[in-house]
């Protein structure tokens, strides 16, 4: 088996499994005052400090959630509601059109049900939002912008956004910027403090932690209106009894992901480059999606673990089926509607022809990826593309 779908989820790190199982047998609600509660709270707060450290944030800026989707919803809806409550004129939401559905659909919902005016920021052929685009959008009426949301790096095509420059522009106009950093965490330096972001989403299971846990990094001056009301945990922003085992394991995984980031970019990025070369050699007309440059100190580039291709004349689903039969597990990269693959909104936003956009594959590498996985792809991809092309587009 060659598992090359780490952007969907990546195996839990043994250290995280250990931390989680150790907590599973311990009783204690972190909100309780007795000894068991205090012990649980200590575990949670240590985990919060660890995560803050891994993410260049203060512990109080870590709001634990049930995952990336919840953190995105809390940021987008919560900040919108809070900003509008403070100033009813602020109803404009600026978003990149290549966001994950957790952001995109939340923004769309605000437009449909909360009277928000949603504006999508133009992206270039790599799917990147340029700071001047954001500036022009805000300048049209700086007084009515509720928030801006632009992901740190794209989950499908891997393009990295100029988050710091975008945050500078937003800060100039005192507009909060949220970034979904679910894919960036562990692959790029995502220090929340220096980033200038108001809010940033991270997720546990994408960095070797468990499912069902994530966090919204939230600047202390921001108080989004809660999506979940209840016991007032997590700065009264996110109620709900904390999942102590998941929190503890997330912290361990997050710490290790941050520690190994440079190794990951070097080693896994190197394997990714080999994969791109192998695919291009076997299928010369394959188009690499996103920014072809590697991420570096001076270049934004692409995520080190992402390789996204479009194969003209092929159905992505056919390729998936053929590779799956060879034990290669990857993704088309786009969302499904009732299981039916739809052309990716990301590719459409970059100006890709809709028919072409149906023939995509995303390979995403991770901490368990080996050269044997790449060799398996190198061997299988040529015949698979040929066969999928003969089956055509239905």
């Amino acid at each position, binding site marked *: 088996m060659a598992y090359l779908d780490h952007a969907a989820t990546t195996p839990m790190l043994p250290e995280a499994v250990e931390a989680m199982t150790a907590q599973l047998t311990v009783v204690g609600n972190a909100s309780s005052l007795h000894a068991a509660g205090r012990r649980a709270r200590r575990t949670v707060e240590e985990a919060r400090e660890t995560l803050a450290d891994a993410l260049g944030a203060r512990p109080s800026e870590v709001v634990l959630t049930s995952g990336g989707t919840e953190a995105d919803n809390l940021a987008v809806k919560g900040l919108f509601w809070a900003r509008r409550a403070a100033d009813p004129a602020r109803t404009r939401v600026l978003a990149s059109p290549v966001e994950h559905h957790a952001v995109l659909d939340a923004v769309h919902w605000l437009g449909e049900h909360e009277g928000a005016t949603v504006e999508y920021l133009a992206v270039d052929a790599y799917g990147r939002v340029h700071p001047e685009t954001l500036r022009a959008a805000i300048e049209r009426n700086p007084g009515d912008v509720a928030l801006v949301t632009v992901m740190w790096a794209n989950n499908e095509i891997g393009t990295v956004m100029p988050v710091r420059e975008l945050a500078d522009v937003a800060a100039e106009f005192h507009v909060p910027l949220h970034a979904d950093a679910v894919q960036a965490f562990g692959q790029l330096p995502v220090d929340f403090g220096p980033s200038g972001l108001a809010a940033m989403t991270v997720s546990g299971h994408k960095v070797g932690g468990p499912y069902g846990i994530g966090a919204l990094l939230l600047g202390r001056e921001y108080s989004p209106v809660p999506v979940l009301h209840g016991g007032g945990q997590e700065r009264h922003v996110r109620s709900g009894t904390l999942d102590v085992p998941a929190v503890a394991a997330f912290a361990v995984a997050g710490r290790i992901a941050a520690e190994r980031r440079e190794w990951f970019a070097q080693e896994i990025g190197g394997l990714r480059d080999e994969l791109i070369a192998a695919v291009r050699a076997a299928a010369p007309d394959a188009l690499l999606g996103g920014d072809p440059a590697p991420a570096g100190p001076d270049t934004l580039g692409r995520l080190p673990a992402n390789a996204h291709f479009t194969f003209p004349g092929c159905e992505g*689903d*056919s390729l*998936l*089926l*053929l590779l*799956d*039969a060879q034990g290669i597990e990857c993704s088309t990269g786009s969302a*499904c*509607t*009732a*299981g*039916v*693959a739809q052309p990716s909104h990301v590719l459409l936003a970059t100006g890709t022809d809709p028919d072409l956009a149906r023939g995509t594959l995303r390979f995403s590498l991770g901490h368990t990826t080996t050269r044997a996985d790449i060799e398996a792809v190198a061997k299988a991809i040529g015949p698979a593309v040929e*066969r*999928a092309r*003969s*089956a*055509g587009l*239905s």
Partner: protein
Amino acid sequence: MTETPAAPQRRLRVLAAMSGGVDSAVAAARAAEAGHDVTGVHLALSANPQSFRTGARGCCTIEDSRDARRAADVIGIPFYVWDLAERFREDVVEDFVAEYEAGRTPNPCLRCNEKIKFAALLDKALALGFDAVATGHYAQVVTDADGNRELHRASDMAKDQSYVLGVLDDRQLEHAMFPLGDTVTTKDEIRAEAERRGLAVAKKPDSHDICFIADGDTQGFLANRLGKAEGDIVDESGTKLGTHEGAYGYTIGQRKGLRIGTPAPDGKPRYVLDISPVNNTVTVGPVEALDVTALTAIKPRWCGTAPAGPGAYTAQLRAHGGETPVRVAPADGTLHVTFTEPVRGVAPGQAIVLYDGTRVVGSATIATTERTTAAV
């Protein structure tokens, strides 16, 4: 003729069409158990795949797609959803509407087998390297002494679905697999088998209706598509007896729902004898006038070589109909079929499937009928 089971010795790559129902789930499970390399596929056939339906069952909903996926997961086979909605709309739904508009009575399931399951789906499957498409139909494919493929009725006549497969030609049959065809069993036993295999669809209700008509209201569907077109209901002499809101709403042999105020002079019930889209009239009359003695059918398709001359066969005229002896004379791309005994309720547009014993010989689409009484 030596009949050997079609079940091949070698391991085949099989694409199992999974509707989300119990039959196709058990069929896929049996193919996998037989040692084949099976991949499940659910066909998304509805233009609006997000529509949830309650009560009625078919093959076009998220629930069905999920049921199929769940079954595939239990069987332990890969599963995909293929979007054939556009092809289905063109080849099945639009054809269905056009046929009714022309005063004929189509069978969309037959059309779907011909154009979708054993054409669009099969072609894609073959291109992707599969050897066969498996479905949950009750019919048998056997190989004769010369290695030719033959389609036969299911072992269990009560469950037989060879009628809706009668349109398949040699090439299609060569790649067709019906794992339920040799089952002599009741539906309850198939359900028990599904239960035993841990398939949650074991208790799912059967599908009866036309899958693309969500609420089962064919008249409403046609009215919506074709609009109201008032016309006359007349008797055999042409005397107006009432009005209708669209001739497409009637089927030859229909008795109920005619809403004619005046009773027939002899007090006997009246039946739809003819539908004329040209002058938008529906002709009604006594039951005897439905007796058909012969018919002409077009677009014959043969399972194997076409017969050289006239022959005697048995014929089936609708999905759950019985068999009737016929003489068939092929001529110039049409078939002239003579019934030994008159049959009732034969409508142009329906398929006639010819059998030699249990073997499907071929099929054709009924174009015109000849009646014992005054021709209408």
